């Protein structure tokens, strides 16, 4: 019998619902973005995000069912992002999911947001193990090794800012609006020369990341130029910054892929939509002969389809949540297989 999971995601500033068939096929995928509301604040304001989620939640659920031309009776389970994320935002999706599951007598599955980002790839092509995932977003920069479905080993993570956070901060230095990633990416591609910024390799053999030093280097550069009364060239600063981020991300991912002899490398999270990063990873792994995938843009940014894809595997493994489920803002990525 076919499996249909209704998934809900409200961990940050997107209110999203989707229906996924057998863990791989998108039947419907609805995302209501709040970006416009947060722009004037220069970032996501948790209280504003929560207010928006309450306004949108039943609308996106209805739209997901409508686009799928399905009734709740045809569903196998309800999945929702349990964490990590903004707690007030998570709670909206979780409580909506609990009611929906209760009213329609469906099993409830609480999913990890990052597992979701990784499983976005299952919607594009089958995942092959061992698999290495580079998860880069506004809140995360992680290298995750998967030996099988439901097994996660975080082999490297950021020690300070997430890559996306660094992008937003540098964008502010260059007077670019929030979110900054796409602007820096665009500017970087307009430059032929780059300002030289440091690379944070950390200690030998480490797969961890650090972006705060790079961010400070950009701020100091602007400061020094200002003091000398010289104008910075935004395109060259953007390229210098992006080159540094991309080089470190690519090199560490390559080294890990070799060490763990992975069959597949995937990128996930909002920053994996970045053209500079994508191109660098594609080239590197084509040369290396390891298949590399990155999902299409709308599956890179936050969405519920990816939550449904991850939840399908959890469903098969017998994982179930209950009506006392709470939001877990600092939830760790742990294995669901023993």
């Amino acid at each position: 019998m076919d499996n249909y999971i209704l998934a809900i995601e409200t961990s940050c500033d997107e209110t999203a619902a989707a229906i996924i068939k057998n863990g791989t096929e998108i039947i419907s995928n609805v995302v209501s973005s709040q970006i416009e509301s947060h722009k004037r604040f220069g970032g996501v304001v948790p209280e504003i995000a929560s207010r928006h989620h309450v306004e949108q939640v039943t609308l996106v659920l209805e739209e997901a069912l409508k686009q799928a031309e399905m009734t709740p009776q045809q569903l196998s389970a309800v999945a929702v992002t349990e964490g990590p994320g903004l707690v007030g935002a998570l709670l909206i999706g979780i409580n909506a999911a609990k009611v929906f599951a209760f009213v329609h007598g469906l099993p409830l599955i609480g999913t990890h947001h990052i597992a979701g980002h990784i499983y976005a790839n299952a919607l594009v092509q089958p995942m092959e193990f061992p698999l290495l995932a580079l998860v880069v977003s506004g809140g995360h920069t992680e290298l995750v090794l998967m030996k099988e479905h439901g097994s996660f080993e975080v082999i490297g993570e950021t020690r300070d800012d997430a890559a996306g956070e660094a992008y937003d901060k540098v964008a502010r230095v260059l007077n670019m609006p929030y979110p900054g990633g796409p602007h820096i990416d665009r500017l970087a591609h307009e430059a032929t020369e780059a300002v030289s910024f440091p690379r944070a390799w950390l200690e030998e053999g480490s797969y961890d990341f650090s972006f705060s030093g790079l961010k400070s280097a950009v701020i100091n550069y602007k400061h020094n130029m200002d003091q000398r009364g010289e104008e910075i060239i935004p395109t060259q600063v953007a390229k210098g910054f992006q080159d540094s981020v991309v080089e470190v991300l690519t090199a560490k991912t390559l080294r890990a892929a070799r060490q763990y002899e992975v069959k597949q490398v995937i990128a996930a999270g909002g920053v994996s939509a970045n053209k500079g990063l994508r191109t660098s990873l594609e080239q590197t792994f084509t040369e290396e002969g390891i298949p590399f995938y990155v999902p299409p843009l709308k599956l890179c940014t936050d969405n519920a389809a990816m939550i449904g894809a991850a939840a399908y595997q959890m469903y098969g493994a017998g994982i179930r949540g209950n009506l006392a489920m709470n939001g877990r803002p600092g939830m760790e990525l742990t294995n669901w297989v023993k």
Partner: protein
Amino acid sequence: MIWLGIETANAPLSIAVVKDGKVLAEVVQNIKLTHSVGAMPAIEEVLSKAGITPAEIDAVTVSEGPGSYTGVRIGVTLAKTFAWAIQKPLVGVSSLKALAANVKMSDAVICALFDARRQNVYAGVYNGAQLNTVIEDYHDHIDGLLEKLKALQKPVLFVGTDVEVYFDKMQEVLGENALHVPSTLDLPRASELIAIAQQQKLPSIEATHAFVPQYRRIAEAEANWLKEQKKGQL
């Protein structure tokens, strides 16, 4: 007519099922348990005790605020998703009016209030058994509220678990006109919520999507942003 009532606007939790004006089951609790953990199991428990399935419910009502932002949102999310899922109407009731209903037998002026911290309160002032509005639900400094109440020159029945935080001040300003109801009446009850909701016209089922909490206060980030804009204009 079977009603489900949901009240999570502040620390206390109450869930009730009322059939044709009679309370079948009700939970009232005031323990340190986050509503996200406690509310949904309480709904399941109350329905199961009442022997009512979700599909049998004819209408849902919720305490729409004011109160703790997160608390109000949990209740509203549960209620609007419930009403939408069973395709039945949703009625919002003021969390303050529902609390005032605990003492509606009296003829006095009733002031329901919740602490909003830093000497601020959410308050609503109602009159007599009909619970007519004297002062519409709002957010104010406690001093501002007490000035308004003093001007009424009548005994005021204060109701709510947070009254004790300000009762010295209330007596200071209002003297003998400041009265605190017995503490057994300080907890909101979802059955009172339903009693008020029953008197209102049922909205359309489509209206559920647009249902939002009544925060009675704009978000801090928004307030700061507006302040900045004003500065810019000067």
